[in-house]
C-alpha cells in the first residue's frame, strides 16, 4: 500500500511541476518548477527500482539541464518580464494539435509493444550496473560514440557563434586609457 501512495505523490509532483512550468508568469519560477518536475520523474524511476536511470536523471537533468535553462534565461535577458504579455499565445490551437499528434505517436507503440505483455520484472535483477555497463560498451558502443561526437560538435558550434557575437559588437566602451600610447593621464 505505502508504495502506491508514494507513486501517486510523485506523479502529482511531476504533473504539477510540468503545468506550472508552462503557465507561471515569472520565467525564473517556470524554470524552477521544471526542475521540480525533473526531480519528480527521478523519484518515479527510483521507485521502480531502476536505480541507474533514476540517479542519472537526477544527475543530468536536475544538476545540469536546469542550470543550463537558468543560464540561457539570464544571458538572453528573458528574466525582465514584460508585463501585460498574454499568457496563452495566439497560435495555441496549432500547438494543441501538434502535441495531441505526438501523444498518439508515443502511446500507441508503447501499449502495443510485446515488452509490456509479461509481468513487470519483479525485484532487482542481479548487479544491474554490471549489465548496463557491458551493454553500453559492448552492444551499443557505436551510438554512444556518435552521440558523443554530435554533442561536442554542437558545443563547438555554440562557442564559435558566441565568440563572433562578442567581437562583432566591437570592443567594450572604456578601453583602459593608460594602455593607449601617449594618453595624457590623470587630467581626464
Amino acid at each position: 500500500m505505502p508504495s502506491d501512495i508514494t507513486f501517486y505523490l510523485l506523479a502529482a509532483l511531476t504533473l504539477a511541476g510540468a503545468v506550472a512550468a508552462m503557465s507561471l508568469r515569472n520565467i525564473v519560477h517556470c524554470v524552477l518548477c521544471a526542475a521540480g518536475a525533473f526531480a519528480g520523474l527521478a523519484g518515479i524511476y527510483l521507485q521502480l527500482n531502476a536505480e541507474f536511470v533514476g540517479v542519472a536523471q537526477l544527475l543530468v537533468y536536475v544538476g545540469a539541464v536546469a542550470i543550463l535553462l537558468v543560464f540561457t534565461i539570464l544571458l538572453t535577458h528573458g528574466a525582465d518580464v514584460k508585463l501585460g504579455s498574454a499568457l496563452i499565445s495566439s497560435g495555441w490551437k496549432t500547438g494543441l494539435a501538434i502535441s495531441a499528434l505526438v501523444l498518439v505517436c508515443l502511446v500507441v507503440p508503447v501499449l502495443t509493444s510485446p515488452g509490456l505483455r509479461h509481468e513487470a520484472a519483479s525485484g532487482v535483477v542481479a548487479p544491474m550496473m554490471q549489465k548496463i555497463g557491458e551493454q553500453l560498451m559492448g552492444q551499443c558502443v557505436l551510438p554512444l560514440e556518435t552521440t558523443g561526437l554530435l554533442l561536442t560538435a554542437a558545443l563547438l558550434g555554440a562557442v564559435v557563434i558566441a565568440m563572433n557575437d562578442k567581437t562583432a559588437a566591437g570592443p567594450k566602451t572604456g578601453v583602459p586609457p593608460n594602455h593607449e600610447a601617449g594618453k595624457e593621464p590623470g587630467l581626464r
Partner: protein
Amino acid sequence: MNGLTDKTALNPGAARVTLDHDLLEVAMGPHHPSTHGVFRMNLVLDGETVVRLKPVFGYLHRNHEKIGESNNYLGSIPYTDRLDYICSMTNNWAYVLSVEKLAGISVPERAEYIRVIVAELTRLFNHTCQVGFLLQDMGALGTPLMYAFREREKILDLFESLSGARMMHNYMRFGGCRCDFPAGWVERARSVVAHYPTFLDQFEALLSGNEILKVRTQKVGVLPAALAINAGITGPMLRASGVNYDIRKVDKYGVYDRFDFSVPMGEHGDVYDRYMMRILEMRETLKILNQAISTLPEGPILDPKAKLRNLRPKAGEAYGRIEAPKGELGFYLISDGGPNPYRYRIRPPSLINLTILEDMCLGHTVADVVVILGSVDIVLGEVDR
C-alpha cells in the same frame, strides 16, 4: 572617456543615464568591508571586469585645515594625531618640522635621535599592518593580520609608556619632544627590535612564497613609472615602480644622514612589488633603529629657547615634509605674525596616491580592485582630512 558629460553618468544626483545593455553599475562602499574606511568607488562592471571606476570620498572630512587656522600653533599638535591615525608620530613630526622652519627653532641632538627612533618604529608597524590588511583583502581570513597586530601591540605598549597614549601620542613639541624616555624604555625597545627579524622571516615564509599570493598580485594593478611621476605618487608605491625617491635621502632632514641604510626599488610596479617594497623597507628600518638606539646621545630633549605657549612666528611661509610610511607628508604654513597660522595646508600622501586608482584598476576584476586598493595603503583620516 568622452569628456565631462560621461562623468555625470555616475554622479548619483544627475539624471540616470541609461547604461548600454550589459554593464552593471555597483557602488562599492562607503560601507564596504575592504575599503579601509569610508571610501566609495562607483564601479561600472562588464561581467566582473571593471569598465569605469569613480572614487568618491569626503565622508570623513572633519574640516581639519580650517580648525588649524583658528587654533594656536600648540593646539594643532593633537589634531595632527588624527590625520593618519595609524602613524601619528610621523604626522606630529611633519607639522613640528614645518613650524620649526617657520619660527627658526633649533632642535637638540638627543631630541633628533628620539624623533628618528620613534618615526622608524611607526614605519615598522605601519608596513606590517599594511601587509596584514592586504592579505585580509585577498581572503586570508585574519591569520597574517593577527600576526601583524601581535607585533604592533608590542610597539604600541612602548609608545604608551613613552607618550601616555597608544595611538594619539601628541608627543612632539617645537624644538624637541615633550618628555624623555622613561626608565627601562630603551632596553624594551632594543628587545622588540631584536625580535623583529625573526618575525619578518616567519611572515615571509607564510606569504612571499605562497603561489596563490603570487598569482593574485603579480602583473595586477601595474603602475608605469612615467604615470607615477606625473601623478605625484610618493612612498613605497613610487619606489615599487622603480623610481629612486626617498625624502630621507633627498632632504636628509633630522639626523638621517648619520645612519647607513639603503632604499629598495622594484621594477614591475605591480601589487607584488609594492608588497615586497614594504617587507624590504622594514628590514632597512631595522638597520636604522639598531644604529640609532646604540648611538643615542645624552642631553636635553627640548630647546631651552623654544616657547611652548603663544608662539608668534614672524610673517612668512614654510613647507616641511618628511618620508611618512605612506609617502611624502608635507605641511605648508603661512604665518601673518599672529598666534594662529593664516593658512594651514597638508599634503596628504594617501589622497594623492589614490588619484590614479582608476588607471590601475581598469580591465581588472572586482577582486583585483580590492587588492589594488589594499596595496595603495590609504587611511581615510588622511584622505579626507
